């Protein structure tokens, strides 16, 4: 029937929209960042730590460093908490407690990033400031904020993985006389390894791209720093802070930062594909 054919075509068009979207995003971001790559130069843009647009310095390394350190910090705190919570939910939590935590984690995932950022700005930053005798802004505060934000992602995905494991695995291990901890450590965790890895990578993606919450607590300075309590910036926070007044090459340099983020996000997806393909084989 002709009608059925048209409908089918329409449905394919809907499905293809995701490809069109990613293509358009890539083309636009690339096109907008071209002036910076050609005029400011590759080295000035990607290999320099100096960010001073008024004098023609567009180096993004300081912010790339900020992005990497805050993401790692967020994962170091958030991943054990998330994975641990998932194991607790799967293995130990009494029914009511489990439901409470599961709902709680869902709510946590829904809390807007500005709200968490505001919370970080008014509670966390003063707390870090008092603890370390500094301004309180910086990588430490941003990492804790990001940990809170990756926690729901990692918990939910790990719980799903653990639940998809066959129950015989645990039963067999317990029947062999293993304690619960032994069966978690040597049977369940190895079986769920790939799923947990994917959960952590997706958490990483969320941490890397988080903008507003980080921008509110990182201090927004231009310096390259490895100190946990000195103000610095991330790729995302720099884009938000500067996009309003940027024009010309300056604006284009910000798009180049977006391009870097875009490439990093795609890399994460490719890594996940490789990890999950190995499991299937």
């Amino acid at each position, binding site marked *: 029937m002709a009608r059925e054919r048209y409908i089918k075509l329409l449905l394919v068009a*809907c499905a*293809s*929209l995701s*490809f069109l979207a990613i293509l358009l995003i890539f083309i636009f971001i690339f096109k907008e960042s071209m002036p910076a790559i050609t005029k400011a130069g590759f080295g000035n843009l990607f290999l320099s730590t100096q960010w001073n647009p008024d004098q023609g310095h567009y180096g993004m390394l300081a912010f790339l460093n900020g992005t990497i350190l805050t993401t790692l910090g967020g994962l170091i705190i958030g991943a054990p908490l998330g994975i641990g919570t998932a194991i607790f939910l799967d293995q130990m939590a009494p029914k009511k407690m489990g439901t409470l935590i599961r709902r709680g984690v869902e709510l946590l995932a829904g809390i807007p990033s500005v709200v968490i950022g505001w919370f970080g700005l008014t509670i966390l930053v003063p707390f870090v400031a008092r603890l370390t005798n500094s301004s309180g802004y910086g990588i430490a505060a941003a990492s804790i904020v990001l940990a809170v934000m990756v*926690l729901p992602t990692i918990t939910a995905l790990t719980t799903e993985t653990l639940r998809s494991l066959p129950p015989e695995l645990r039963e067999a291990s317990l029947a062999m006389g293993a304690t*619960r901890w*032994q069966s978690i450590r040597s049977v369940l965790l190895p079986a769920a390894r790939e799923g947990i890895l994917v959960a952590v990578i997706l958490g990483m993606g969320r941490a890397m*791209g988080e903008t507003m919450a980080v921008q509110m607590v990182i201090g927004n300075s231009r310096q390259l720093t490895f100190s946990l309590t000195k103000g610095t910036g991330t790729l995302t926070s720099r884009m938000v802070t500067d996009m309003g007044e940027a024009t010309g090459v300056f604006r284009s340099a910000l*798009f180049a930062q977006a391009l870097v983020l875009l490439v990093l996000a795609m890399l994460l997806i490719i890594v996940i594909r490789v990890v999950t393909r190995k499991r299937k084989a």
Partner: protein
Amino acid sequence: MDARKRDRIATIVFWGIGLVTLGILAFIIIEIFGRGLITALSPSFFSGKPEAKQVGGGIGPMIVSSLYLAALSMLIALPVSIGAAIHMAEYAREGRFNNFIRFCLDSLATLPSIVFGIFGLTLFVITFRWSYCLLAGAFTLALLNLPILLRGAEESIKLVPQTYREASMSLGASRWTTIKRVVLPSAMPGIITGTVLPVGRIMGESAVVIFTTGLFIRTIPLSPFDPAAPLAGYIWYAQTEATVLDYRKIVNGGAAILLILVFLINFAARRFARFYAKRKQLEVKF
């Protein structure tokens, strides 16, 4: 025994982790509500006009902006993602094309929202010359939400028992009629629950809206081409620019209202899905 002792320590540790997670959530919610609930519940605040320079401003137009934006964006995204989900679940065979589309969806899902934001800025606001408006934000957020919406719809469609389809087709219904009359109505409760996360995300999204819809308005937006200032973006703006003396009060109250809105949507969609599922079952019984 050593192993038993270790097991006990592990149990204590995992209980601790579970309680810490619960504690973090409780701390944030209590803190936000404790600071902002009184402001949030006063009518002059949640329905009042914002002030650019004096104290005492409200956030009425911002709440309207958020709701309007969410509705508009879902109106765009939902039909497309249901269509794509039908294709993926009912027509397409698992093969290269599907695999490729999934790769695109996964990539869209991990792209930082700020990348969507500046994309929306260049395409809708600048290239299309719409300037800052609701529609620019709605389209950008529709793209942002496409992967989650599609996955939710696809899973709900796949959960519909195969026997339903067989029964319908054995009565002579075509494939499309089967989908329209049998599969989609049965999948609807699941599809509706699947909109909770995306709607909540639209409400909370600030990195996209500050680049596409605008940051500050004083009148309620009516047309999709009107500039708007969704609450989440305005909270950020009020906090960062701090042009009014009582900005702390506005941010505290706004954050509390934002949380209430997100929780309400969550609750309402669950309720609606349950109600819808129950009604459908009754129809089948008759």
